[in-house]
C-alpha cells in the first residue's frame, strides 16, 4: 500500500515541481500564455540543463539537489501568488486533459513498479552510471563505472528521481521517464486542432500503438531521445505559424537549443540527431537563414562542450567502439556492399510490420502527397534520419546481430516525426474542409 502511495506522491511532486517556472523573472515570459504542458516541458528542460551544468562542476547528487531546491524555493517564494492565480485558470480550463495525463502516468508507473526488470543494454551500459550518482559519486568517477565513452544524462536524471522519491528500489529511478514521456507526448498532441476530449482520445490511441515496456521503460535511453524530439517537433510546429520574430519565436528556439543539448548528453548518436534537427530548421524557416546558421553554430559548440567535458574528466571520447571497432577508411569502404544494403532494406521492411505506427505513417504520408500538403521540413528530417540509419547499419560490425536487436530502438527515436505526419495531415484536412 505504501509503495502505491509513494508512486502517486512521486508523480504529484514532479508535476508540482515542474509546473513552476524558473523563467517567471522575465516579464515577457509571463505574457506568452503557454499551456500547462508546454510550460511543464519547458521547465523540465531548463532544470535538466541546470542539473547537467552542475554535474560539470564535479558536484555529487546531494550538492546538486540542494542547489536545485534552493532555486525552486526562491522562484516559488517570489512568485507564489501570481503562479497560483495563473494556474488556477489554466488547470480549470484543461482539467480533463491534465487529470487524464496524470492518470495515465500513474498507470504506466504501476506497470514499471511491477515489471521491474531492466534491459540487457541497461544492465551493461546505464545502470552502473545510475549507481555512480545515486551512491554519491561524481562525474570524475564515471571512468570506473564502465563504458565511460557513453553520455550520462539519463543516469543523472533517473538517479535524482530515485533519491527524492520515498522508494528505495531501483525502479523508482525510472518513474521520471514515465513523467517525461507522457508530458512530451501530450505537448505534441496538444497541437491537434480538436477539443480536449478528443485530444484525450488521440493521446490514448498513440499510447496504445507505441506502448512497449521493453522499449520504453526498461532503462534504455531511447525514451529520452523520443521525448526531447517530440518537444522539438512541438516547437517546430509553433515556429511554422510565427510570421515575424517575437518573444514566442525566441522561446521556441530557446526550447529547441535546450533539447538539443540534452539529446547530445543522452546517447552518442544524439550528436547526429541534433545536427539533422537544426538543419531541418533551414527548411522550416527559410526567411531567417542567418539566425538558423547561428543556431547551427550554437549546436556545434554544445557538441564541443561535451567533448571538452569528457576530455577534462578523462572519459573516453570515441564513436561507439563497441559496434564499429575499425574506423579506418579501407575497412569502412569494404563494408559498402549490395548484400549489406539488402539486409538493411529487409529489416527496415520487416520493421514496418512490427510497428503499427510506422506502417500507418507510410499510409498517412501517401495521403499527404495525394492532398498536396507541403511538409518539406519534415521530409528532409525523416530522410536525414533514414540515411543515418542506413549509414550506421552499413558500417557496423556484426551487422545482422546489431540490426536485429537495434533497429526498432533507432526507429523509435524518430517516432515523433511520424506523429508529426498525422498532425500535419489532420490539421490541414480540417483547414481544407473549412
Amino acid at each position: 500500500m505504501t509503495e502505491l502511495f509513494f508512486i502517486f506522491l512521486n508523480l504529484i511532486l514532479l508535476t508540482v515541481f515542474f509546473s513552476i517556472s524558473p523563467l517567471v523573472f522575465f516579464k515577457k515570459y509571463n505574457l506568452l500564455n503557454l499551456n500547462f504542458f508546454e510550460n511543464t516541458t519547458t521547465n523540465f528542460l531548463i532544470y535538466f540543463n541546470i542539473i547537467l551544468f552542475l554535474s560539470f562542476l564535479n558536484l555529487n547528487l546531494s550538492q546538486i539537489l540542494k542547489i536545485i531546491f534552493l532555486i525552486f524555493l526562491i522562484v516559488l517564494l517570489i512568485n507564489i501568488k501570481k503562479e497560483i492565480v495563473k494556474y488556477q485558470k489554466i488547470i480549470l480550463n484543461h482539467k480533463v486533459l491534465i487529470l487524464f495525463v496524470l492518470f495515465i502516468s500513474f498507470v504506466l508507473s504501476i506497470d514499471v513498479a511491477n515489471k521491474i526488470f531492466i534491459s540487457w543494454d541497461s544492465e551493461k551500459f546505464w545502470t552502473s552510471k545510475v549507481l555512480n550518482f545515486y551512491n554519491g559519486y561524481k562525474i570524475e568517477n564515471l571512468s570506473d563505472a564502465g563504458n565511460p565513452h557513453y553520455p550520462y544524462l539519463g543516469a543523472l536524471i533517473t538517479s535524482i528521481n530515485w533519491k527524492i522519491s520515498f522508494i528505495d528500489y531501483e525502479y523508482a529511478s525510472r518513474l521520471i521517464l514515465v513523467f517525461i514521456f507522457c508530458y512530451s507526448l501530450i505537448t505534441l498532441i496538444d497541437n491537434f486542432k480538436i477539443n480536449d476530449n478528443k485530444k484525450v482520445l488521440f493521446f490514448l490511441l498513440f499510447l496504445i500503438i507505441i506502448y512497449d515496456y521493453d522499449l520504453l521503460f526498461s532503462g534504455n535511453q531511447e525514451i529520452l531521445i523520443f521525448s526531447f524530439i517530440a518537444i522539438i517537433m512541438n516547437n517546430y510546429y509553433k515556429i511554422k505559424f510565427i510570421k515575424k520574430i517575437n518573444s514566442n519565436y525566441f522561446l521556441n528556439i530557446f526550447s529547441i537549443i535546450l533539447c538539443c543539448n540534452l539529446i547530445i548528453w543522452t546517447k552518442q548518436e544524439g550528436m547526429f540527431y541534433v545536427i539533422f534537427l537544426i538543419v531541418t530548421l533551414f527548411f522550416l524557416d527559410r526567411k531567417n537563414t542567418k539566425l538558423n546558421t547561428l543556431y547551427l553554430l550554437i549546436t556545434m559548440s554544445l557538441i564541443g562542450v561535451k567533448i571538452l567535458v569528457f576530455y577534462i574528466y578523462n572519459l573516453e571520447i570515441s564513436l561507439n567502439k563497441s559496434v564499429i571497432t575499425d574506423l579506418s577508411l579501407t575497412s569502412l569502404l569494404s563494408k559498402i556492399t549490395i548484400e549489406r544494403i539488402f539486409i538493411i532494406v529487409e529489416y527496415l521492411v520487416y520493421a514496418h510490420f512490427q510497428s503499427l505506427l510506422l506502417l500507418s505513417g507510410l499510409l498517412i504520408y501517401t495521403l499527404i502527397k495525394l492532398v498536396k500538403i507541403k511538409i518539406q521540413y519534415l521530409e528532409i528530417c525523416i530522410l536525414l534520419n533514414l540515411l543515418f540509419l542506413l549509414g550506421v547499419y552499413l558500417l557496423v560490425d556484426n551487422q545482422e546481430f546489431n540490426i536485429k536487436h537495434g533497429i526498432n530502438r533507432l526507429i523509435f527515436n524518430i517516432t515523433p516525426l511520424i506523429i508529426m505526419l498525422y498532425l500535419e495531415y489532420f490539421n490541414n484536412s480540417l483547414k481544407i474542409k473549412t
Partner: protein
Amino acid sequence: MILNRKFIKNKKTSIIFLVLLIFFFLKLTNFPKNVYDLLKDNYEERFISSYNNVFYSGFCNKSSHGYIYHIYKKFSKTMNQNSVPKIINLDPIKRKKPYWIFLFHDPKINQDEIILLNYDQSLSNFDLKKYEILDNHQNKCLFLRKND
C-alpha cells in the same frame, strides 16, 4: 432540435469509444493485476517473479537474477560494506554477472564469498569442500563462504 440530437449522439458515441479505449489500455498494461500484485507482494517477490519471465534469466537459471537478489536480501546485513560476493556462473553459455543488484558503485569483489550459479555436480570441477554452504537452492545455486 435535430442538430442537438446529432450532437448528443456524437458526444455519447465519443464517450463510449473513449471508455472502451481506456479499458483496452488498462488491459494492455495489466493495470488491475498490477495494482493487486503491488498490494499483495513485496518488492523481492515481484523482482523474482519478473525475472522468472525474462528470457535471459530466471530464479536459478541462466543469469539467475532472482537467486542473486534473494542472497542480497538474506545476507546483506552480514556482507562487508561496499564489497560483494563473487558471482561464478557455470552455465555453458557466457552470462552477464549482475553485480548491480547489490546497488553499489564499482564494488570490491570479495573472493571469500561466492554465489555459485548453474552448478552441476556431475559436470563441474568446482571443489565445494573448501567452502561452507550458507544457502543452497536445489544443489544448483549456492552461496558459499571460504573455510578459514
